[in-house]
């Protein structure tokens, strides 16, 4: 099936060329970071994780979200999703690749990375995160490839793949739970020390991931004519809507606990994120309020069935939802966790241009992986007459 990568329209090659160019430029920036150290980033002694780790966190969610297609299709025999599943699985592979790369670019001594395996530390959540991410990558690669091969040959997929698929469903929940445990088990970081962190992560993943997938698939429809099926889009939109409602609800639970209990430590990060500190308003405050407005806006479109099924409005609602959830998890989560500092002081964090470029480079690699895999999937579907 790999040969499918070689033949394509001109715009396909232009797209790949563009991605490779972005990767090359951002790669040069990363080499600069390797030589100078992480001093080129906006991180500091007090805010010691930044954009890289937050993007890692966000994309673990995107990877896990493939389960929102796989679970209905295999646990509930919801056939309408079967046409689209392969795109979800392949997007998960791209997302996990991005996660791994975001960890690598965040390391101070990346050449020592193998130490995590050479000196396995079962007490560290990072150790389990590595295991579940590698496992998830392998599961999706095997499942995606085998089912696609079966589709190409117009036969039923082998029986054993079913068990791997069941495993992958449970595995998807585990990767994001373990990622939440990276944060939720740390004493003294009030914004993260919450029992519903994993639940929040999953709900935000299950709205944002499928929303990204749906946006990409709708784009694909315009570009190539591949139709995911009206019914499938409708059902996935309902799933996204429920997940987003739960996501917003969980966030409000945090707000209630912090403010009704009156415990200052729990309030400080929220106050900092939404109102700043001592009269100065950090840039992240504007983002947080933008996220609130976008989240409300997206729900206003997604909840009433009439608006939700309007295909002209839907992409906008999904876009707003993706941005809102990205601000919450890709910015606010990290910044609120580190500010205030353990000394109840305030150190502002702002990613530098170089940091943003390295992150863009990782995005481009992820997009490249997804583009190549999707190209294979599309051509196989075309050949098999399942377009």
């Amino acid at each position, binding site marked *: 099936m790999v040969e499918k990568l070689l033949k394509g329209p001109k715009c396909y090659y232009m797209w790949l060329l563009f991605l490779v160019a972005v990767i090359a430029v951002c790669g040069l920036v990363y080499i600069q970071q390797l030589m100078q150290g992480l001093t080129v980033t906006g991180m500091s002694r007090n805010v010691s994780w930044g954009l890289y780790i937050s993007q890692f966190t966000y994309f673990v969610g995107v990877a896990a979200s493939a389960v929102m297609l796989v679970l209905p299709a295999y646990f509930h025999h919801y056939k309408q999703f079967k046409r689209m599943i392969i795109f979800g699985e392949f997007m998960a592979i791209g997302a996990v690749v991005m996660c791994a790369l975001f*960890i690598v670019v965040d390391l101070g001594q990346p050449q020592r990375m193998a130490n995590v395996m050479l000196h396995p530390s079962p007490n560290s959540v990072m150790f389990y995160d590595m295991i579940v991410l590698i496992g998830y990558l392998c599961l999706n690669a095997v499942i995606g490839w085998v089912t696609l091969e079966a589709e190409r040959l117009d036969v039923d997929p082998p029986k054993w793949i079913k068990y791997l698929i069941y495993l992958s469903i449970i595995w998807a929940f585990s990767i994001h739970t373990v990622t939440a445990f990276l944060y939720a088990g740390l004493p003294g970081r009030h914004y993260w020390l919450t029992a519903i962190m994993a639940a929040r992560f999953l709900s935000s993943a299950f709205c944002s991931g499928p929303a990204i997938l749906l946006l990409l698939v709708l784009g694909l429809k315009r570009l190539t004519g591949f139709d995911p099926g009206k019914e499938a889009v409708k059902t996935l939109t309902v799933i996204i809507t429920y997940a987003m409602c739960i996501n917003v609800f969980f966030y409000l639970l945090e707000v209630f606990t912090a403010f009704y209990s009156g415990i200052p430590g729990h309030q400080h990060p929220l106050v900092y994120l939404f109102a700043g500190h001592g009269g100065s308003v950090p840039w992240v405050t504007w983002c947080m309020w933008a996220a609130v407005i976008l989240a409300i806006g997206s729900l206003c479109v997604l909840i009433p069935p009439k608006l939700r099924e309007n295909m002209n409005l839907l992409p906008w609602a999904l876009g707003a939802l993706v941005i809102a959830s990205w601000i919450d998890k890709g910015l606010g989560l990290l910044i609120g966790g580190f500010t205030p500092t*353990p000394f109840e002081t305030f150190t502002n964090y702002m990613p530098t241009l170089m940091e943003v470029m390295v992150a863009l480079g990782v995005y481009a690699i992820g997009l490249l992986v997804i583009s190549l895999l999707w190209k294979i999937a599309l051509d196989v579907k075309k050949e098999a007459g399942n377009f």
Partner: protein
Amino acid sequence: MNNGRRNFLKIAGISAFALGSGAAATLMGGAPAEAAGIGSYEESSRALHAKRWAMVIDTRKFRTKADFDKVIRACHTYHNVPDIPTEQDIKWMWTDTYDHVFTDDMNEQLPKKMLQDKYLLLCNHCTNPPCVRVCPTQATFKLENGIVAMDFHRCIGCRFCMAGCPYGARSFNYMDPRKYLSDPVPNPKYPTRMPGVVEKCSFCVERLAVGLQPACVEASGGAILFGDLNDPQSVVRKALAENYSIRRKPSLGTQPGVYYLV
């Protein structure tokens, strides 16, 4: 610079060799390595022992800025800690005010002097250290004597320990620290660090191994006490029995090994 680097390599080499022969205690410094014969390691007969090392800081004896500078300089000089004038700085020992140090013991009605005074900060060498728990490579580990030690050569620089430490005791080498050190380095016997690793106070484990008190304790002239918390006859136990002491963020259950007499 070259000289400093050569010294560093020499000491790193000896340390790696000593580590290979199973002598974790020598990883920090050159002095204990002198006792190592080829393929063997013997503990120095002068080494100080304890079941649980602990520190008592008598805050009443720190009156002027000079009192603090003296101990901080002793520590930072001994361990080649660079002075980086940005938010990406390295600190093993530093000072801050009461509301920043004892955040969950804050009371605005405390005597003005107490609120305005500075307090000495360093790694707490917790009995239950979150940094050790989260480290994915065991580059941070707890010794049997209660000291939370670090292997700079194993650290991958993931900074999970910095997120885990509720006391902000850890620093990351965002840049090459040697650029901010004199040439030759202040203490050629102690290795300088490379960029991309985390570091913190080591309770001077390498000095204890050769029978010396920690650098800050030695420089403090009695204002900082150091001893075995498990020994009722030790200086720290006596000081704690006779004076009122507090620790930072006791509610987190980390059991800090640094006590403050107030």
